[in-house]
């Protein structure tokens, strides 16, 4: 591996967090992106870590307001790599991460604006030759260039992984929620802008983007040879009130029924 973790001890851990401008799902106002803010929170919760935030993109007024949301979490400055609004930010991020040489890069799983494909962490990992893990829920320890982390699985389960640093990890909504953004620090913090050549994303210009249409509901197609079955399926009411009702039973009988259901569903451990 060409990039070795420089420091073997935990002290002086160098963490970079990639942040974007989010969009409020209801009001559509620019805001700090939820998953990115969780990534910042996770970075801040690491002991002795030097946290640096990186944003690549345009910086309109709107964007500045949103980015200051991250500064309000208690961060001095954001490294702002200026890019044209239609640019592919991956080359610029690769260059700046090479310069910064962090041991750990945290990102959100996918952006709240633009294509939102969630590819950036994987592209960066491929370009830098670093491993990438998804769904980071907690960093347990970092020792001798190896991080032990918990990965979030569906239904609140966790998996323990060991990953060689430097590495990239994505954070999703199962990570701890981000702290509030405070107004004063958000004003005082600095956006350290730096120009960088932007590479236009040509493919994206050919796309046709429109507000999301509601997806058609899937029809229930009944393929049955007998007319009776087809009729029954078509005329059946939506499943409601189909539940089983146990009245006038002793508590033990009721408990037995509940117990059987729990066992059938496999939720008893």
């Amino acid at each position, binding site marked *: 591996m060409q990039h070795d973790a420089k420091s073997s001890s935990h002290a002086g851990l160098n963490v970079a967090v990639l942040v974007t401008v989010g969009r409020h799902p209801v009001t559509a106002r620019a805001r700090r992106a939820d998953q990115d803010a969780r990534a910042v929170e996770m970075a801040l919760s690491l002991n002795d870590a030097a946290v640096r935030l990186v944003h690549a993109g345009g910086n309109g007024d709107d964007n500045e307001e949103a980015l200051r949301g991250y500064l309000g979490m208690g961060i001095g400055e954001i490294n702002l790599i200026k890019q044209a609004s239609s640019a592919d930010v991956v080359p610029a991020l690769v260059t700046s991460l090479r310069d910064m040489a962090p041991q750990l890069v945290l990102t959100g799983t996918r952006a709240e604006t*633009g294509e939102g494909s969630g590819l950036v962490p994987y592209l960066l*990992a491929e370009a830098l030759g670093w491993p990438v893990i998804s*769904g980071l829920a907690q960093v347990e320890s970092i020792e001798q260039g190896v991080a032990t982390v918990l990965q979030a699985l569906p239904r*609140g389960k966790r*998996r323990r992984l060991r990953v060689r640093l430097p590495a990239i990890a994505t954070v999703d909504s199962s990570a701890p929620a981000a702290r509030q953004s405070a107004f004063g620090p958000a004003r005082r913090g600095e956006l350290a802008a730096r120009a960088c050549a932007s590479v236009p994303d040509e493919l994206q210009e050919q796309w046709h983007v*429109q507000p999301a249409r509601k997806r058609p509901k899937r029809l229930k197609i009944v393929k049955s040879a007998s007319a009776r079955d087809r009729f029954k399926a078509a005329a059946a009411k939506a499943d409601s009130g189909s539940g089983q009702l146990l009245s006038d039973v002793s*508590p033990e009988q009721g*408990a037995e029924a509940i*117990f059987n259901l729990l066992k059938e569903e496999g939720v008893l451990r």
Partner: protein
Amino acid sequence: MSDIIRRDPRKEWIARNRLHPEHLEVLAELGGGASPSEWTGPSGLTRRNPHAVGFIGPNGIKRIDRSGAQQAANQPGSRQAQPKDTRRRVEIEAPAFMVAVVPDLSGGRLSSHDRDLLGLARQLADADPERPGAVLAIVFGTHKETTFGEAGVDRLLEVQGDAFSGYLPETRIAALQSVEREMAPHYWLLPDSSLGGGELGRRLAVRLGERPATQVWQVEADADTDTGWRCTARGAAGTTDIARAMPRVVLALAECAEPVSETRHAAQPVELAQALPEVLGRIEDMGEVAVDPASVSLAEAEFILSAGNGVKDWDGYHHAAQVLGATKGASRVAVDDGFMPRDRQVGATGTWVSARVYVAVGISGAIQHLQGIQSCEKVVAINLDEGCDMIKRADLSVIGDASEILAALVARIERYREEQQENRDAA
């Protein structure tokens, strides 16, 4: 039971001979159960005895139910009750191209998402009847699935080995790269699920140097594009639709296409010519971690025991939650009255939960509460009031006093745990 009709000439002879002493019994037997009204005659034709049809109704009149309900009820598991396999067999000998699909196989079986994706793969493969493509499914590790053919798989590549049982994305990508080298599939389709195909597909696309379409939910033919297909994908956290030419690698959402239902495919096993390369993994799987159900956030929890105004014995409730290993939830009243913390409130102004099993103890089922449990799979209600709305929503309702039922449930589960312990000790 085998489907081959076995004929017994002697019995057939008795069935024809109405004067034979065993005539009625044999008729009944040949008729396949209780009704001696239908049997297979000597020439293989179905014979009917109209006098033996029907039943005597409550007022003494003979009734004949032609809807079939009676018959179906009378002959469980008879030959007619079994659905006949009407699927057309399709075998593609020399495919013009391959469509590779990597199903999630969560829990070792094809999920409905996987089946939808295989349906999409079939669309792509069968578009041109002159040049039929084959759908190649690549599955890792051991699985329990037996219906790959029904799901639309022509070629099945099972990548076996200990290395594929855990979470080892780098090894899997190396295997998929070998597939790319040897079989050069025309398209790669993966389910865009959070921790299976979604992750693997992004890794694969980046490794292959292809720009994938993610969150695809619709694919249509379009002669203007390079691949001949156009797709619609969700962008910007699901708030926009992006219409674009379909690339080689597609990560599709659930219900992107109809699953295969009319044909049956060969699911012919194939193998890679070369051994898989050794990969020096930089990510090591240390296995799943046991989590304390109480610490799981409500929105993620799989099993919730939720308390409402009907709970009087709070110590008993907390004890029950602990014994059941359930995450605790509450209705607003329980929260407002100070029995439960605010972050445990389920409902419109609380958390929207998606538990597999939701047990509502003493909750009346106000609309604000029911909204929050819309996506729960199984709901169990424990309540005194038989007419309340929670009972209407519930899959299982037990009418009775909450504390007594919870106590009985705790006792039952402790007994179960003991039995299990004994079994383990005995083994």
